């Protein structure tokens, strides 16, 4: 899911033999089989548990976790599911809400039950930010702050030195209640990024906020009602903080309501998970908890018919069902009223229809609803815009990028931009497509300290810039790789060294006495081989490093001396050099 599409995020990653499923969402635009991902892509026959090493949920939005109980309890998966603490806390509540709307209101059967949600949540392991979770010996995952909603996280998945980062949904600019997404320069082989706003560069947040407040204020001043359809958690809290402070500052009296149920509870979550909000809120929460609202009261269904101005936050956010849709129907006919859509609407929803300019809506029972109220769209959804996506790529420095959770046309544009600016490959597979990315993993090996020390000890004395050549033996046994000195390798394998020695006879014309010849050879060599240890031993032989040179008189010709040059294979270069040097004879001795 989420391939060139927004909805039912579900991505399967195979990395170094491990299979990880990223998110398990539902699609809000469908009511049939297409609302859930097609899990038969993972395996046709065989249990999902055997095939998947783990499942990771990035945040609590239903398009990222809505199919989870179906997946784990109805299709069947018993392995670990990872999510952050706030996600673990909030996710089951949204799932239950979703189930209620689907089963109790729309009367669907063959849907997951409350018990299934509970059983599913038992499989969830909560993770801390930046905690390295060892899923098994090789596979590790780590969560980073994503700032999209409370508890939203990006995940790094790592096996050996190969890694993938999945962003989930993220926001690169801090808002009134959450901080900005952050990741270190972890250089993943692949970055899977959302791209909801692939082509948008949003104006400054301040402007949008001012605009929003102005519109609300104007409507209320002329006695109109403002409906703001929201999802219970996320934007709702941001906009509440915004209105609360505005009401306080302007001393406004018109009531603000928050549709009951979920939302009251939601504010509670924000209070308890305040460490996940932004710096400012965290710092001041002891003096004043930003999620305790003075001006915002719980909504009752009957209030909708009250005369006079009011502002109502109602769920759900895309006007596709529930209380927000009910209020919308009541208020749509009056041009004094206003509906403000603060976020993205999926195709097929009422929200999407009115945003695309439709003013006559066909409701259930063929009823036609004429929309006279003002319709405003204001992007408050906390997704990164094009600038933000580029910024994240700059932060993480991935070798490849893969775009999901966006529209194909927009992705295409962003893909080109990414490839141009970062010179990395960028992919945008459609649902059901597989993208293969070749990695170039290096191989970690254990090196014996003796060998390493020997190498680094030679190092600094010689020219530091010159590469240090090292020689060792790589022992491979089972899965362990050890690089040791050749001597140690022989010893460990119980093998003896085979010594290969060469002795060359070099004839030199020199009528002098043997020991004089030797002295001449010694001086000659000493003069040329300045960097080597050349020694004249008491027994009349010469050594150059470990090469031995002895002189004997020729048995037949007294004017010729025979030099025996003897070296082992390890001194091959020097030995060979010495023989050819001596072959050229000795220089005329200077008197």
């Amino acid at each position, binding site marked *: 899911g989420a391939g060139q599409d927004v909805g039912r995020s579900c991505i399967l990653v195979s990395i170094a033999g491990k299979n990880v499923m990223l998110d398990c969402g539902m699609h809000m635009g469908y009511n049939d089989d297409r609302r859930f991902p097609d899990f038969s892509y993972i395996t046709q026959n065989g249990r999902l548990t055997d095939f998947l090493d783990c499942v990771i949920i990035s945040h609590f939005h239903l398009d990222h976790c809505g199919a989870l109980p179906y997946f784990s309890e109805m299709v069947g998966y018993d392995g670990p599911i990872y999510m952050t603490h706030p996600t673990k806390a909030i996710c089951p509540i949204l799932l239950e809400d979703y189930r209620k709307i689907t089963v109790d209101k729309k009367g669907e059967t063959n849907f997951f039950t409350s018990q299934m949600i509970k059983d599913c949540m038992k499989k969830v392991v909560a993770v801390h*930010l930046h905690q*390295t979770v060892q899923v098994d010996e090789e596979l590790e995952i780590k969560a980073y702050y994503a700032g999209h909603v409370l508890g939203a996280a990006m995940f790094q998945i790592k096996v050996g030195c190969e890694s993938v980062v999945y962003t989930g949904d993220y926001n690169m600019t801090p808002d009134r209640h959450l901080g900005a997404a952050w990741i270190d320069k972890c250089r993943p082989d692949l970055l899977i990024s959302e791209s909801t706003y692939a082509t948008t560069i949003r104006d400054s947040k301040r402007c949008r906020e001012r605009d929003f407040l102005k519109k609300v204020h104007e409507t209320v001043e002329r006695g109109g009602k403002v409906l703001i359809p929201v999802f219970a958690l996320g934007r709702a809290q941001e906009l509440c903080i915004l209105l609360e402070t505005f009401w306080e500052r302007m001393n406004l009296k018109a009531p603000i309501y928050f549709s009951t149920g979920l939302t009251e509870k939601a504010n509670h979550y924000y209070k308890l998970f305040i460490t996940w909000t932004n710096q400012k809120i965290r710092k001041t*929460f002891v003096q004043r908890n930003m999620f305790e609202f003075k001006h915002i009261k719980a909504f009752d269904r009957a209030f909708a018919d009250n005369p006079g101005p009011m502002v109502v936050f109602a769920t759900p956010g895309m006007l596709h069902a529930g209380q927000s849709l009910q209020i919308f129907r009541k208020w749509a006919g009056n041009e004094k009223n206003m509906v403000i859509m603060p976020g993205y609407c999926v195709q097929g929803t009422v929200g999407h229809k009115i945003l695309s300019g439709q003013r006559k809506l066909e409701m259930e029972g063929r009823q036609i609803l004429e929309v006279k109220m003002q319709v405003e769209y204001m992007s408050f959804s906390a997704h990164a815009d094009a600038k933000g996506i580029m910024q994240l790529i700059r932060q993480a420095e991935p070798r490849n990028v893969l775009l999901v959770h966006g529209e194909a046309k927009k992705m295409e544009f962003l893909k080109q931009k990414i490839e141009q600016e970062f010179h990395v490959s960028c992919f945008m597979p459609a649902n059901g497509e597989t993208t293969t990315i070749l990695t170039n993993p*290096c191989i970690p090996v254990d090196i014996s300290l003796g060998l390493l020390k020997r190498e680094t000890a030679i190092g600094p004395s010689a020219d530091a810039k010159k*590469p240090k050549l090292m020689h060792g*033996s790589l022992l*491979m046994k089972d899965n362990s790789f050890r690089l040791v000195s050749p001597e140690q390798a022989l010893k460990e394998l119980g093998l003896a060294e085979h010594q290969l020695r060469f002795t060359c006879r070099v004839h030199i014309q020199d009528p002098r006495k043997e020991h004089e010849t030797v002295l001449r050879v010694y001086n000659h060599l000493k003069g040329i081989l300045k960097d080597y240890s050349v020694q004249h031993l008491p027994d009349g032989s010469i050594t150059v490093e470990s090469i031995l040179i002895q002189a004997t008189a020729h048995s037949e010709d007294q004017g010729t001396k025979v030099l025996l040059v003897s070296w082992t294979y390890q*001194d091959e270069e020097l030995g060979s*050099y010495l023989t050819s040097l001596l072959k050229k004879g000795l220089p005329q001795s200077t008197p």
Partner: protein
Amino acid sequence: FFQYCLSGHPTLPCNVLKFKSTTIMLDCGLDMTSTLNFLPLPLVQSPRLSKLPGWVLKDGSTFLDKELKECSGHVFVDSVPEFCLPETELLDLSTVDVILISNYHCMMALPYITEYTGFTGTVYATEPTVQIGRLLMEELVNSIERVPKAQSASMWKNKEVQRLLPAPLKDAVEVSMWRKCYTMPEVNSALSKIQLVGYSQKIELFGAVQVTPLSSGYALGSSNWIIQSHYEKVSYVSGSSLLTTHPQPMDQASLKNSDVLILTGLTQIPTANPDGMVGEFCSNLAMTVRNGGNVLVPCYPSGVIYDLLECLYQYIDSAGLSNVPFYFISPVANSSLEFSQIFAEWLCHNKQTKVYLPEPPFPHAELIQTNKLKHYPSIHGDFSNDFKQPCVVFTGHPSLRFGDVVHFMELWGKSSLNTVIFTEPDFSYLDALAPYQPLAMKCVYCPIDTRLNFIQVSKLLKEVQPLHVVCPEQYTQPPPTQSHRTDLMVECQPPAMSYRRAEVLTLPYKRRYEKIEIMPDLADSLVPLEIKPGISLATVSAVLHTKDNKHVLQLPPKPPQPPASKKRKRVSEDVPECKSLKPLLSGSIPVDQFVQTLEKHGFSDVKVEDTAKGHIVLLQEAETLIQLEEDSTHIICDNDEPLRVKLRDLVLKFLQKF
């Protein structure tokens, strides 16, 4: 590997570890027992304290009577209380790269280290540790600064004078190192050097060392630390608990396979059972209140107080205490209670589940809501209006030397109806009470120390099996007051290495391997040979690159090929630059096959002679002989380089290279 021990207090440790190329300070504990030698700092002038007689030497000299006061046979310094700092002379503390904090009690000396030693590194601690540590420091600074004391005594510290003083002043150590409390700007500056970390977060230090905090189960955000490279692992266990109180349980599994385990912060009251103590606390409290008396609980503003409030929450209705007011007085009382509710991720499972509902994890939220528990920043202001007796007061400091507790000791000390209940284990209650004697009020000692006891330690060590244990010397012998209790010490094999203040230990450690990475193109070029079943070997000649303590092996650069058109330069004209490494050889040469090979290569006059150890192969025309033995080959020839090279290569074909 060295360990520098800067603190002699086993539960307030301060050690510095030299590990690979890094210098790591483990904790920064501040020994506050030194304050017991000082007179209490009363918020309101106390006629009793100000009338105490000056101390007079045996010979009648009175030159110290301004500095030292006598109270019920004990002598106290009449000055601003001072603390015993960690050793600062043992090594240059500006070389410390990082400081790892295990819990909020073990960071109280941090400003002294970060602000006065030239320290430029980073401090690592969890978020609750930092937040609550800040509260503890704030309370400390506040309770000392708000009682400005004109006098600062120093004459008694003179070595010659100190010798003449009665115990315990006479035996106080390092008095010249005692320091006054830091200030809030210093606290803020110190805390700004902290980087927040989460449990199981791997933090790389200079590419050489990785440090990881693990849950230690003792307090909110308390951690043990793993300090490791690829091959050596040091576990630092400090202030851990296996009891289920409010914090996340201790992570024991990750301590396995340690080469060295440094063990500090065990329980200070090994003979007391915390559960029993809580029971006694509740019953003594109820009894006093029922008899119309007040209860004073000297405590820290965070930690055990949460558990005590939770117990009382369950207890007060059944004990008929519903109408008794509970007061929590501290400049940070409100913050502490608020902060405790927002660290869901650092709490035990039960409390986490409550947050998921969503409900506050600690029931003191309900106590506050129902007005049973009230908190005040100090005894001034609102408190004096609300104050009703009999009541229960939680306030600091547990040393009874400063903070609002001094006021209540003076207020309630004269009545035997009242009770002071000691729950914090850091100070001897008798010493704490000494300047208040004679005292009519009842004293109950219920120390609650949830840290590991010796039975749990021996279980833990059996479980995680470290190669070596290092601990403060106090843990290697029974407590001095109970020398027969040989069960009250750390027992392990090999025996634990002990340390004491100002000592440097060499940790038993032998490294044998290091991690290195082989680049993919080099790996492709390797040719592994199976030497023995299951064991393959490849010789590697490669270029070693070392950067940021990470080693990488790359393909050696190809030697620059001289252009073919130019006259080939004879290699032998240049002196070989350095010893180019040739592989070692192994194997043996079968003489028959060798001869066949020679013949195949055009040697027609090969003659073989047997010798004692092998064979001699003679090439008659070339006047060359080749001695073949089990483990050696010797080629003796005239100076005919092409011939020698040809023979060499033929021999090498029979041998394996290493």
